[in-house]
């Protein structure tokens, strides 16, 4: 698998909230067109880690970081880089579905394009449709595109948020525990979707749920107390972990 092309990587990444260090010297590589899962107990820094990947981390007051995040070999924290551009290339889906409350389903999907002022006109209808199709939501909402984005079920809302991210044609999609607020059936749909997404995108998914990581990911990173304990292809990490900590976590001894 090592012959795959590298899409993103972190190099000696450290992050703080105020005085508290939440990430310690994390270096890892994310391959193109794969799903990378990040697992670990609550508070291990996995959410913070993916938020450094699209510069959302710095929006929190008191947040700092050091080290590098490379996207196609370029440091996204470089002086000349506009965080806004980074976020267009690296999309994100959040823990709780957060469609824009004042916008319709259609407008939610179109929001990214409109907000960034990229595309307008007839093309928009097509982009909205393709995005909803890719997010496997089109058939469920095609007659209700004018309804508010908050009027559909939680699972549908989360797929709407995925469609919203897809509409911008990002290269990487980050997902921060996207199923934690959903029921098992909705979760299964999202998981199926995640696997499909890697065909066109590179996916990084934070999850609390080890079985989920096992089902959807090609690579798995295990984090504990802000450190990257183990990183490798999912089968190896789950069946033959190098670290005792990883084994304990995976076998449910803590967490």
């Amino acid at each position, binding site marked *: 698998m090592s012959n795959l092309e590298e899409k993103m990587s972190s190099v000696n990444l450290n992050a703080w909230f105020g005085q508290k260090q939440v990430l310690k010297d994390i270096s890892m590589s994310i391959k193109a067109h794969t799903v990378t899962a990040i697992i670990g107990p609550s508070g291990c820094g996995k959410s913070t880690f993916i938020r450094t990947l699209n510069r959302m981390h710095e*929006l*929190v*007051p008191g947040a700092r970081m050091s080290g590098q995040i490379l996207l196609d070999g370029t440091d996204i924290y470089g*002086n000349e880089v*506009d965080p806004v551009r980074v976020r267009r290339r690296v999309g994100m889906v959040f823990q709780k579905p957060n469609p824009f409350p004042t916008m319709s389903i259609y407008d939610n999907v179109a929001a990214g394009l409109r907000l960034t002022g990229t595309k307008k006109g007839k093309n928009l209808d097509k982009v909205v449709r393709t995005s909803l199709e890719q997010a496997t939501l089109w058939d469920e909402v095609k007659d209700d595109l004018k309804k508010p984005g908050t009027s559909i079920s939680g699972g549908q809302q989360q797929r709407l948020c995925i469609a919203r991210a897809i509409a911008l044609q990002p290269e990487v999609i980050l997902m921060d525990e996207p199923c934690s607020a959903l029921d098992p059936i909705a979760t299964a749909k999202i998981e199926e979707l995640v696997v499909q997404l890697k065909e066109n995108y590179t996916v990084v998914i934070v999850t609390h749920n080890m079985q989920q990581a096992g089902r959807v990911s090609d690579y798995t990173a295990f984090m504990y107390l802000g450190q990257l304990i183990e990183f490798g292809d999912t089968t190896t990490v789950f069946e033959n972990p190098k670290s005792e900590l990883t084994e304990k976590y995976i076998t449910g001894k803590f967490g």
Partner: protein
Amino acid sequence: MTKKLTGDNIFKVLAAVMAASAAVILIINAYILITGSTLILQQEGINFLIGKNWNPVIGRESFGVLPFVMGTLVTSSIALLIGVPLSLGIAIFLVEMAPKAVKVPISYLVELLAAVPSVIFGLWGLFILRFWVQNYVETPLNTYLGWFPLFSGTPLGLDFFTAGIILAIMIIPTVASVSREVLTAVPDSIREGAYSIGATKWEVIRHWVLSYGRSGIFGAVILGLGRAVGETMAVTMVIGNAPNAMPTSLFSPGQTLPSLIANGFLEAPTPLEKSAYIGAGLVLLLISLIINIVAHVMVTRVLKVKGGAVE
């Protein structure tokens, strides 16, 4: 990172400049009042503050604002003495006692009281409240307790007492709503602890809830004081507007700082007299600023209003 001239930075700077509006307004007001009152302050010096005589007759001019400062203090004190217990009762009723079905309409009515323009309070005070006060409060008190200096004089209903009552009614919405917030902010664990040792509701409120929230309630009271001190129209309409009267009896007509200005400012013929009214405005501004700063500190400390979303 270097700051670039992006849309984001331009908007942020623009909004930051606008955020100074309040400060600019405050500075403009202070500047105008200070420059406007230099004339009178040069003329009268400290006598402006401690002088008891306000006499605009040309040739015999003397301008001392003490009677009006006292008038302001007297009416505001009456307002607090009557308005604060009422407001606290309302706040306690709303937070600790009222069932939900009653809570909403009552808080609605109290808010409506806040929406009534002060000139309408004044009109009502002048034509209705005045007679209630004169007939049912002042005349009996004067008849039976007239030997007591506070109740002496001829009760006409247009005096410090009526002004104080109008102010009491007007501060109720402010004091009640802030006290209500303060009481709501008292954690339930405090109440549960007290109930668990067998206290009655009254005991819980008196010994635990009120003492826990006391600095916030004090802040609410000070806010009410601020309103009472600055209120102009309603007071002007019912206080009787006696020129130059040190308060001696509650039932004598008088003036407060705002009513003095409202009554005399436009008619003042000489620059000196105009400046005297502006000086009175400056005194009022200072009193009001001090009161409001104290109130702000007390209330925010209790409610811990933290500002700002993500930066």
